[in-house]
């Protein structure tokens, strides 16, 4: 363990560099997001992820936002364990009928003001499952959605871009 800890002290962090002139770089996106979030939410943007029937692909990429390369928390954005702690619900999946009530109750448990971001093509319109008897098809059919981040699944950079667009347009 010492080796890893020593390495952590001596070597440069893997986290992709802080704001650079490249407007599309991940860090720049994250910096903008952090700054806007601070102005509007006083340094705090707590996100609660809700899987409403996804294939788990979107979850894998949302997870990646927390790894050393993207390190979402450095911008004051963090995932929380309960909707009661959340400002934003990040919802994935075509909303299966068996998950509909759970999603509605999670939304009801989130304190105002609250926002919903629908992640992935399934959350947009049901995706490949849109004709199913078992799916509602699209998060907006169940709870009001403020932003859709498309992709199957959206990669972490797309997710970051989407989060910025959201904070920029947040009223």
């Amino acid at each position, binding site marked *: 363990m010492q*080796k890893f*800890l020593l390495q952590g002290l001596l070597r440069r962090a893997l986290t992709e560099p802080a704001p650079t002139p490249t407007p599309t770089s991940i860090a720049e996106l994250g910096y903008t997001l952090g700054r806007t979030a601070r102005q509007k939410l006083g340094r705090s943007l707590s996100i609660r992820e809700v*899987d409403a029937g996804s294939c788990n692909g979107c979850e894998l990429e949302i*997870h*990646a936002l927390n*790894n*050393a390369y993207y390190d979402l928390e450095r911008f004051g954005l963090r995932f929380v364990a309960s909707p009661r702690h959340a400002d934003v619900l990040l919802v994935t999946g075509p909303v299966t009928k068996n998950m509909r009530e759970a999603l509605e109750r999670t939304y009801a448990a989130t304190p105002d003001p609250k926002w919903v971001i629908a992640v992935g093509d399934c959350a947009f319109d049901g995706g490949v499952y849109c004709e199913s*008897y078992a*799916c509602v098809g699209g998060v907006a059919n169940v709870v009001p959605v403020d932003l859709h981040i498309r992709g199957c699944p959206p990669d972490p950079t797309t997710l970051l871009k989407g989060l910025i667009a959201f904070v920029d347009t947040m009223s």
Partner: protein
Amino acid sequence: MNFASKQIEAQPSPPTCLPWPREIVDRAGWLAFAESLAKGARELLSLWGEPSSVHMAVLEERQPRLRIVSLECPEGSFPSVGRLHPPALRLERAIRDLYGLRAENAPDARPWLDHGRWGVRHPCSDPEKIDSTKDSYAFLPAEGEPLHQIPVGPVHAGIIEPGHFRFSANGETVVRLEERFGFVHKGVDQLMAGASIERAARLAARVSGDSTVAYNLAFSQAVEAAFDVHVPPRAIYLRALMAELERLANHFGDIGAICNDAAFALMHAQCGIVRERILREAASCFGHRLMMDRIAPGGVVVDLEQENVTALFTLIEWIELMTPRLIALFGDTTSLQDRTVGTGYVSEALAKQYACGGYVGRASGRTFDARKAIGYAPYPQLTFEIGASKEGDVDARVWVRFDEIKASLKLLRQILDEMPEGPIIAAWALPEDWTREGAALVEGFRGDIFVWLRMRADGVVQRCHLRDPSWFQWPLLEAAIKDNIVADFPLCNKSFNCSYSGHDL
């Protein structure tokens, strides 16, 4: 739009399934198979329904390793396999929910995937409209003065899939865990019926996002078996390359996550770096981080460029350097071992009874690996060892995964070294004569994925059954957590990492 209406007229004779023929049995024959499963002479691979028949796939000790048997159910019922062989129980409950076929004298008549919220009963066969908005569900009792219940889910605390766990606990100790699933049921069986090959492949690739390559491969192999399509050698190697990259990425991600559930964040961070680098390389080679939709019946749709080969070798070399360090970090951290050793024990007998695949089975003495046991190309030409242990605890499941990482690295080198040149997809046409059936068994990172399908001559899927390895792993989690403390559940659960989406379908 229901399954029955999409069916075309019956075949004059039962079509032959390839590469394993499907045998028609009578009730006595069906029961004989059920009894042999109960005695342990065979292992249950899957059990699935159609509007008026049921099918069972079993593993044999001798060649051919795989057999498929079918029973017609003109009365809408069939002799219960689960009554004699418990691993079949949930599959039978799912058959009843989707196809309305009843397992006679089954010990558990509760629904499984159907929560009473679809607006229809048995949606895949003669759907019947209902008004109810939800069904009540009776959990199994656990009685005693000090016992209390803890309901968890379907929405969990982490970024994970939804499912419900009902713990009955005595203080901190779990007396009984009962799982309730079906929350992510998306109706894949019905969506598959009537789908074109392209659409069906996209659906198969989205059954469980972490195993998208393995599912896509299994589906494609089944189509290729049905239509006797010969995949070009280069495509076979490219498929194996993707499959091993997917396996590596998942094993690293999960080992990190298991340690994170024991509050050892250092391992999580380090494994996350390895996983991310693999996904980035996958995106650079194949244009998608998870390599979704890169395999198609007949071959693959993206070729590997020479510059990517060099980058892959660099990546493999780096992972080979990191792996022993991560193994040392895991093995030498006694506070971590304190959490993983002896936790969440699964006996060899249970793993055998449930024909449990993947690292869960292999950590409990069941050495089955479809890459060796079935031996689909290119694996018979490659040299690798399968991870194995008999300890059966969380620790053993991590060690087996480390062994599989080493095996995958060795495989990747061989695949890249021996990669043949040539076309990447076979030119093949639909025969347009008669309905075909095909099956495949592919080893995903989680275990063996079974696919059986029947296709019309014009390439439309009539029925496609996709069986996730989780079907035979989830029940063992209920056994593994017994007598452990509630706080160790996340650790046990992550060490299994079963799929919710693949199971609920």
